[in-house]
């Protein structure tokens, strides 16, 4: 069978207006159904004719999934809230600027207008072997082309790999891990809340998925607890160009401080593993410590311990180390 790209095959489109209806449609169509948020990831797959759902369930008409609410304990963000809305939201900006910063680093204004927070954190990896439709582990095959000796893997993982070396591409994911966000996932009969760092899974858990979401599951809400409101935040994303580009490495950090001393910290890095990596060892190092350049350097060194580069991404070790160093340094 010959291959052709850039032509979306026909599918049946459903546009439910309630979560209940969406869940019912998802149950009805099972593996043949596809949940569509902003479409920035989905339509790429459809255009390439690699993912060919029979039924697309468009969440765009479900109002209860949109918008940001001042909750009892922090913010409750509907999964279909656009990235632009997050970037512009007054309380996000005043209390959780880390999330606004991260959201503003996504792609372009047009993509942020269309893209949603739920979609941004649920998107699939951009490994170009996998996205080209090659039959790799993640696609159900029996090899990883990106880890082959001659493979082009400058953008791939240096840690957290297990057969697959693809990275999580989300800009907002590490910010949500640093903010200790809670993800509400609804199925037809149950509802679960996951800590952000557990929402993202690696290939050792399931090589075909990037998150806990299984067919029939719907991410409905992301809660940002007030615990980290108004903390000292640091976000940085290194990319090849200034817009419409995924990260090479990004860092998101939240620090509670007393003067120059870090009382508590949550630090996450993305672009280095198949999931956003929370840096527990670095957090332990910096908690209770007064920040100086030596601490920042040590934090950077600890951050990359155990990482192992592929042929073309050795640079990610110093890049990650330096970003963590800068995050810690920013407290001083």
């Amino acid at each position, binding site marked *: *069978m*010959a*291959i*052709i*790209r*850039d*032509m979306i*095959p*026909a599918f049946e489109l459903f546009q439910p207006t309630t979560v209940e209806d969406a869940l019912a449609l998802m149950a009805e169509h099972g593996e043949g159904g596809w949940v569509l948020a902003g479409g920035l990831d989905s339509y790429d797959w459809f255009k390439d*004719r690699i993912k060919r759902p029979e039924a697309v369930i468009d969440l765009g008409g479900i109002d209860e999934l949109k918008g940001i609410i001042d909750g009892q304990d922090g913010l409750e963000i509907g999964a279909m809230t656009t990235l632009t809305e997050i970037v512009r939201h007054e309380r996000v900006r005043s209390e959780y600027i880390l999330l606004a910063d991260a959201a503003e680093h996504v792609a*372009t204004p047009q993509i942020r207008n269309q893209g949603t927070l739920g979609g941004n954190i649920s998107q699939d990896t951009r490994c*170009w*072997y996998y996205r*080209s439709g090659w039959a790799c582990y993640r696609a159900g095959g029996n090899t990883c*082309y990106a880890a*082959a000796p*001659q*493979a*082009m893997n*400058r953008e791939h993982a240096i840690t957290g790999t297990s057969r697959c070396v693809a990275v999580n591409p989300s800009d907002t994911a590490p910010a949500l891990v640093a903010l200790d966000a809670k993800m509400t996932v609804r199925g037809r009969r149950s509802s679960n809340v996951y800590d952000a760092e557990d929402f993202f899974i690696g290939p050792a858990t399931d090589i075909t998925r990037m998150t806990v979401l299984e067919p029939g599951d719907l991410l409905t809400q992301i809660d940002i607890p007030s615990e980290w409101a108004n903390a000292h935040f640091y976000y940085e994303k*290194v990319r*090849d*160009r*200034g*817009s*419409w*580009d995924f990260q*090479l490495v990004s860092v998101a950090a939240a620090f509670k401080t007393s003067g120059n001393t870090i009382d508590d910290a949550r630090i996450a890095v993305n672009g280095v593993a198949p999931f956003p990596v929370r840096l527990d060892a670095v957090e332990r190092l910096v908690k209770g410590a007064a920040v100086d350049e030596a601490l920042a350097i040590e934090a950077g060194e600890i951050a990359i311990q155990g990482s192992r580069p592929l*042929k*073309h*991404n*050795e*640079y*990610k070790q*110093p*890049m990650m180390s*330096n*970003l963590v*160093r*800068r995050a810690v340094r920013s407290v001083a």
Partner: protein
Amino acid sequence: MAEKIIGTDIAPQDLVAKITGRAKYAEDFRADGMVFAKLLLSPMPHARVRGVDTTKALAMPGVIDILRADEVRQIEGRPGEASLTDEPLYEGQPILAVAAETEEQAAAAIEEIEVDFEPLPFVLDPLDSLRPNGPNAYTGGNRFGGGEFSELKWTDADFEEIEAGRMPNGEAAVEWTKGDIDTAFSESDLVLEESIVHQSLTHHPMETRSAMMYWENGKLHAFVSTQSAQRTKYAIAGTLNIDPEDVILVAEYCGGGFGSKISGNTHMEVPAVFSRKIGRPVMLRITRYEENYIGRARPGFQSWLKMGFLDDGTCNAIDLYIVQESGPFGAGDFNTAGMIADLVYTPQNMRFRGIAMYTNTPPKAAQRGPGGAQIVIMMEPILEKAARQLGLDRLEVHLKNAPDADVGFGPRNSTLTSVYAKEALEKGAEIFDWAGKQELSGRREGSKVTGIGIGLSPYTAGSRGYDGLMVIHPDGKLYVHQGLGNLGTHSIMDTARPAAEILNLNWDQVELVWGDSSRGMPRSSVQAGSQTTHAHSRANHAAGMDARAKVLEVAAQTLGGSPSNYDMDNGRVFRRGGGASMTFAQVAERAIELGGRYDGHELPDNIHATTVPAANMLAGQGLMGVARDNYGGSGGVYSWVAGFALVELDEETGVVDIKEYVAVTDCGTVLHPRSLGAQVLGGSIQGMGQAMTQRWVFDPKWGVPFANRLYTARPPGILDVPLDMKADAVGIPDPQTPVGAKGIGEPPVGAGGAAVTSAVADAMGGHCLCRTPLTPDIILAELEGLSQPFTLEQHIG
């Protein structure tokens, strides 16, 4: 008194249509009974089609027919591109096309076609092809000459050098020398030697090369995306072997080409032949993914450079060797690069050696400043290094080595019509405040280091001898018929300005006729090589002078006296000192009555044969101005851009932030300042992308490219360049052309790219990375002392 037109900002005539969406590009056209075609692309970099089973596809709903390679023109026995092939030479080369009632049906049918491919050996990297026992791009060899394929391999000893990261010096295909390089190097105070790699990168114009075509009463109606127009009509006729007058070409708008759509393109043949076969209009929409493969790319270089300097900064000798990654069908960039190196740095002693190797990568073609952009982007950081080691100011080194108008360069000691490169450097340095900015060079703030750089970039900017064709109609307006393409550069509008000024008309008294060959197109230059501003300001000047003479003659014949008694202004010809007058409307009517040469029934003997059908079409419609550019001239026409950049390099991330940029051009008389600024800065941005972000990536084992999408190819975006960039011009007319204007499209690319690579070298303390693009990983790996994953390989792009 008619308004001043040359040198003023006038909105181009097509502006409103473009911004309101009324402009129709090739894929916007429809015709009764139109069907869609889709292409089946090769999944392998080199293969032979052993068999094709189309049974299932032909039985699918809506499917009309399939077009195979044996139904289109094939080039046998030599490297040459066919629109469809049974021996693909790169991944993505079209094998066949399917036509169906809808595009979806055509795409679905492609998936049901079984093609039996026999994989063949392939090569991506020219050096691999030169390796003893290395693979060849063609089954017959890796070289073609004297009518046959052969093999050229370097020796094991040559490749010992490569293991050490140095270019080997194996046998070259092209070699020229001037002076005595051995003596010059021995007498030089500083000799630098570097191996430098420049990536290959796709053109990726915003509009892909879609085309719709149909046949009616023996004539082909072709709606296409092309840089040129009149020349594209002839190119299509040539491909199909039909009378050019049987081609009705419609190409009013073109969403960019950068050299990839000069006179049409190979794959236009598909809708033409398919439409003839099935008797229905055929639309072939090319997607971004397909454009990535068939849309052309700039060739990459792997090169070795040795430069000798005297202690006063004089470039004393250059020894340059370029191995070019040429794709399956070749490209000429490397030869141009050698000439430009000689022109920019004027060594009196030079050796150029080069070899272009066929590879199984998508086809290469001229890309804005072909060869010239690559070589200055590669060499300017070396100049930075030399100036630093000699303790000299780079601007002074540039001024010392930049040529004057008496320059002779390249293997044939070519000459130029004018050179004001030094004036461009000096004006640019003033606007940029080069002297003040020197203080900032090497400044460190936290992890950020400032660097400043200069890029001096020349390129061809004109040609001669084309025809102008225009008619004053009985509505009193001047209709200028342009055979150029509407590439978006505005030269299609702006080159009519000289005729308006010669006839003392206001611009609203001028109508431009373009984009439809049935309305009459004179013999024109291709819209490439930055020729058109020079070539057609001359041609329209000549035809304008012809029209002016005829207007005066008609007035004299009608109102008495001699032509010299008359003058004209604002659409009226009048007797000097008062008295009788005629409107241009009356002149046009009178010209039709007089007939003969006045209304185009008699044509000058010296115009091109290909202008005659267009002039015949217009004869009798009014007073015709028609003439060939016989102004002559000697030497090549080159424009120059001097670019100045200030960057901040973050040593902890490898990210380079371009903070300031100034470009000043020597392009002769400025026809349209705002449009010139857009060309100079737009081209500079393209060069910055070439230097910093844009690339291709190939998997060396499987031979296939990634970075097939715009977001993975990474052309520069507006956030990658300074908000406040400045462009200006020297504004000295070229003395050999009546309007004084030269072209501008090409040279900004090298200036923008080289100013940045040079500034990065400055920020790194004179260290040259000698590889593009300068992505953060490459820079950071260097700063951190890591081993670079690549030495001379091309795979990263």
